[in-house]
Each structure stands twice: as structure tokens, then as C-alpha cells.
């Protein structure tokens, strides 16, 4: 496997607003390599966005962000960079695609010139070459009549076309890592598959590392090489997509997969939601975060925080943070 282009270790992120303080990410580690897709799944509020955008300094203004750990982009810890160094890295090294392209694109700015200015700045092109590059990026992102679309404002395009434009915008700076935060959630079902296919194509062609945040287990099974299951800011389970999707160990992962309609046809016995709600991250409890909702819960779960244990060997270790199931099912661990 290639060496990681982006590697995050022991990330802890605390958020402070005038009304709340939250430990949104609590000791998570992850990495991606060129050409690889890492999927991050988990319920709303589990910390997927904060974990991926927080280290890039992309949290909205008005929230104070306290980051600890390391996040190495090409070996350089981005958590120690000055704001201007981080700005430069955001454009050139990381490309970001957001959930809702309608609100993520500036309504007062035309699409094409934004792409061109990115290409000019980060790919070092002349103004003329940058314009050509912008048009070809639009074309490559599957936007018909790109010459015409170049001069369009966001409100003149459909949601699917806008997300394509957003992808083109992220690619204009030729990033090494693409972070896609639920890139299809706001789109029609028919368009979703097209957007995912586009991301996949571009990734294969350019050898970009992709971090895909999604609720869509189907998308994970198609696109992801590896998966991280996040629960309340902690990693519950991680491994290859095949390991996690076909042989889940953590009760939360099992619940999550069981709640997905017709994910595996043999389990078409009806879907069930995981009962209960995620814990309030403003009031941290000792022990397993999932304890209040877990049907396997033991007394020790409330007092001991489970650590990730390796349950399957291979190129990519399959790791699970639940000693109870590991013991109950006699699963062999390797660490």
C-alpha cells in the first residue's frame, strides 16, 4: 500500500461557543493514501464534519476550536501552521466538496471565473490558459456546454450541475486530498449515483486520496477502500469496506447496517432503527459512549472506555472498540 498522504493521529477537538462546549472529536486517528478512498460513516452529530474540516481550519466563525494531536499533510503537521500557511495549503493540497452546493457556492459570483482564478493561482497557469483549464474542468466534471456554463451564476444551474461545478472548483487547484462531506445528501436519488461515479473516475485518473463522509452505506460498499465508523466523536470500528460491511463486530456498526434498507438482500427481514439518541457530548461520561443504547451492555461498559483492538489481520487491520462482543463471540485479537 502507498504511504499515506494525509495522516491524523490522536485528534481531539473541543468546540466552544458562548452557550456550549463540546468534545466533538475524542482521540481519533485516520489516514489516506493516494488513489485510496476512506469512508467515514456515523449518525448525524457523531463528529464527521468536525473531524475532517476542523484540522483544515474550516469551522464556521463564531466557534472557538481547540485542536490537539497531529495531522500530517505530506509529513507536515498542519495543526502547527500559521493561518496564512494553512490558507495556502487549503487551496493547493486539500480540495473540499460540501453537502449543499446551492449554499456552498457564492450566489453573487459566476462559476467559471472562480475556477479560472484557482487554476491560475495553484496550477500556475496564465490567465488565458486558466480560462481554458476552467472550461475543460467543467467539461470533465460532466457539465454539458461548459463554455456557456462558464459565465453562469449558481442560481442558473440545477443542484446536480452545481455539485459538478463544486467538484470542478475543488479540482481546479489540483489537490492531493479531496474531502467530500456528504456530497450527495442534498441531491436527487438519480443524480447521487452520477456524482459518486464522477468522484470515483476523477480519483482514479488523478490518483487523489479521497475522504468520503456519507450516510449512504450503498456508496460505501461501491466506493470505499476503507471505512471508519464514528460514534460520538470516537472510532467504534474501522477496517476495509468488506470487513466492516460484511463482518461487523461493534454493536453500533451492526445496528447501523441493520437500519439500512435492503443493504444485503439476505437480511431483507425488515429494517430497524437503533433505539435511543446519541449521548450529549457536552457532558462526557466515562466508559463506552454507546452504553445507553447498546443491547450487549455490561456493567463494566459504564466505567471502562473501550480501546480499539485488532480483530482481523491483513494489509489493513480490522479494529473494533468493544471488548464485550470480542469476548462473547470468542474473536481472536492481535495486539
Amino acid at each position, binding site marked *: 500500500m502507498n504511504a499515506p498522504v494525509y495522516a491524523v493521529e490522536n485528534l481531539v477537538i473541543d468546540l466552544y461557543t458562548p452557550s456550549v462546549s463540546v468534545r466533538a472529536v475524542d482521540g481519533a486517528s485516520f489516514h489516506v493514501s493516494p488513489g485510496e478512498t476512506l469512508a467515514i460513516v456515523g449518525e448525524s452529530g457523531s463528529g464527521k464534519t468536525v473531524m475532517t*474540516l476542523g484540522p*483544515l*481550519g*474550516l469551522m*464556521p*466563525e*463564531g466557534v472557538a476550536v481547540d485542536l490537539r494531536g497531529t495531522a500530517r499533510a505530506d509529513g507536515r503537521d498542519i495543526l502547527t501552521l500559521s*493561518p*496564512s500557511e494553512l*490558507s*495556502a*495549503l*487549503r*487551496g*493547493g493540497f*486539500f*480540495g*473540499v466538496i*460540501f453537502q*449543499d452546493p446551492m*449554499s*456552498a*457556492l*457564492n*450566489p*453573487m*459570483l459566476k462559476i467559471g471565473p*472562480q475556477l479560472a482564478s*484557482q487554476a491560475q*493561482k*495553484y496550477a500556475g497557469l496564465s490567465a488565458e490558459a486558466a480560462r481554458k483549464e476552467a472550461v475543460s474542468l467543467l467539461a470533465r466534471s460532466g457539465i454539458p456546454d461548459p463554455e456557456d456554463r462558464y459565465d453562469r*451564476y449558481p*442560481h*442558473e444551474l440545477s443542484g446536480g450541475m452545481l455539485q459538478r461545478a*463544486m467538484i470542478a*472548483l*475543488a479540482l481546479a*487547484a489540483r489537490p492531493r486530498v479531496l474531502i467530500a462531506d456528504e456530497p450527495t445528501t442534498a441531491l436527487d436519488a438519480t443524480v447521487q449515483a452520477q456524482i459518486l461515479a464522477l468522484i470515483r473516475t476523477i480519483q482514479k485518473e488523478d490518483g487523489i486520496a479521497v475522504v468520503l463522509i456519507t450516510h449512504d452505506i450503498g456508496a460505501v460498499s461501491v466506493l470505499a477502500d476503507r471505512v471508519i465508523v464514528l460514534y460520538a466523536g470516537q472510532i467504534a470500528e474501522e477496517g476495509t469496506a468488506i470487513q466492516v460491511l460484511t463482518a461487523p463486530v461493534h454493536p453500533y456498526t451492526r445496528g447501523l447496517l441493520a437500519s439500512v434498507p435492503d443493504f444485503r438482500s439476505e437480511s431483507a427481514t425488515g429494517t430497524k432503527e437503533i433505539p435511543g439518541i446519541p449521548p450529549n457530548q457536552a457532558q462526557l461520561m466515562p466508559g463506552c459512549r454507546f452504553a445507553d443504547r447498546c443491547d450487549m451492555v455490561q456493567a463494566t461498559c459504564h466505567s471502562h472506555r473501550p480501546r480499539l483492538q485488532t480483530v482481523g489481520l491483513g494489509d489493513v487491520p480490522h479494529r473494533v472498540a468493544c471488548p464485550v462482543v470480542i469476548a462473547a463471540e470468542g474473536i481472536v485479537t492481535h495486539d
Partner: protein
Amino acid sequence: MQRMFMRRTGLALLLMLAATALTFALVSAAPGNVAALIAERAAGAGADGEMIAKIANDLGLNDPLPVRYLRWLGDAVQGDFGVSLRTGKPMSEEFAARIPKTLALLAGGGVLALALSLVMGLAGAVSNGGIVDKLLHGLALVGASTPNFFVAAMLVIVFSVMLGWVPTFGVSGFTSWLLPWITIALFPGSVLARVVRVNLQEAMSRPFATTGFAKGLTRRAVLLREALPNILIPYMTTFGAQFTLMMIGAIVVERVFGLNGIGAFFIEAIRFRDFIGMQAVLMLFVVFFVSVNLIVDIAAMLADPRLRRPRKA
């Protein structure tokens, strides 16, 4: 889009008609007899009832109100606004002499308010909660709550009396305009500075600002390139409202600084019960208010791509 312009313009014309009719009715209802005033001016104490009645008859003052209004309107659209009862000169002459001064006051004040508010609002947003931001916030609050006659008095005391940099009274060259401009610009400039600051903050919390950061722009670049265009529409609308209010400010400022503009004339017209002059100036105010609002409305529509280029269904 074009139909929208036509509708707005038509509405503006209707509004002008209604407002001039209303002011005409109000001025007519005010106590005081135009014919008696004219007779007094012509014959001094010798004016008698017979003379007054003749004048009233000659001027058609006994006709019903709608007839008088339509006659006034007919004259007005031809540029004849009557003869001032106070100065005895045709109002068109008074306008020609005074409008340029008032316009210079408003234009200079408007530009100053514009510059002041953009610089203050942007500097505050760049500082973002820092000392500069807090200082400018305080300054804007003071500016928006100090009456302009007080501002004028302070400026005159400091810059004319104590420092002797600019004349206290009357207009002679560029420097004499500085204090009036500052005085009239302070209030709208302060209000607009808050509009810039608050709307920039709102824009910076929107997802497109995050996209701006993700593109690799620095915070300052996101403010200028992404957020600033998005405050254009609320800014223009408030600017229009503030600019029309500056006309009211001009009444005080012209008097304090001895500028013989429309505002100063209006005060005198009221004091001397110059009904003709009052009516003409009120009409001018109405035309000013309505056209400024119309221009701002249309400009705001042109500035917003969503309105300028509505999506084809």
C-alpha cells in the same frame, strides 16, 4: 425585468402625484391667507378688503381645491412653480440658484458617508472582535446618536474658531464645504457602518464563506471577494433610505453653516408663511424622495444576479 422597471416607474409617478396632492391640500389648509399676504407686500398697510378679494379672484384662490391643484400641477410640469411670497422672485429662479448648493452638500455628504461606512465596516470585520472592532462599534454608536446641530457646533468650535482652518460661515471654495459634509455624513455614515459590519459578519458565517476559505483564500480575501458582494443589496437599500434622510439633515446643516440652499429656503418659507415657496419645496422633496428610492430599487435589482437573470423555467 423590463416590465418590473415599468411597474416601479409607474408606481413612483403615482406616488409623486398622491404625495404632491396631499402636501398641496395640507399647505392650503394651513392658517393664513395668501391673497392677504400678497396684498400686504404690494401695498404695505394700505391693503384693504377689496384689494385682497381682487387678488384672490385673479389668482383663482376661490376655486375648489382639486381645480387649484390641477392648475398648480399643470404649471409645475412646465417649470412654473409660482412666485415666492417672501423673496418676490419666481421659484424657478430660486431653485436654479439654490438646488446646486444643496446637491453639492448631499453629494459630498453621500460620498463621505459611503467611504466612511465601508472603511469602518470593513476595518471592523477585519479586526473581528479585536480592539479596532470595538472602537469602531463605539464610534458608530456615538455617530448615530449625536444630533447634527451639536456635531456642527463642535466642528465649528474646533476647526473654525480654535484652529481657524476653515471658515465658520458661508461657502467659499472647497474647504468651506468640509465641515458641512462631515456634519451631514456622520449619522448616515455611522448607521451604514453598522449595516456593513453586521451583514459582513452574517455573510462570513454562510457556507459560501467556508467554501472561500476552502479555496485557499485568506480571511481578508474572503471578506473582500466573497462576503462584500453579498452585502451589496442590503447596503444599497439602506443607503437609499439614509440618503433621503440627509435631505432633512440638510435643512439644519444649511442654516448652521450659512449655505443658501433649498433647506435654508424652506425654513424661511415656513417662518414667513410663504405658501407658494413651501409648496414648491415640498414638491421638490417628494420628487427627491421618490426618485432616490426608485433609483435604489432598480440599482439593487440590477446588482442581484438572481433578479437580473432569473432562471428560465
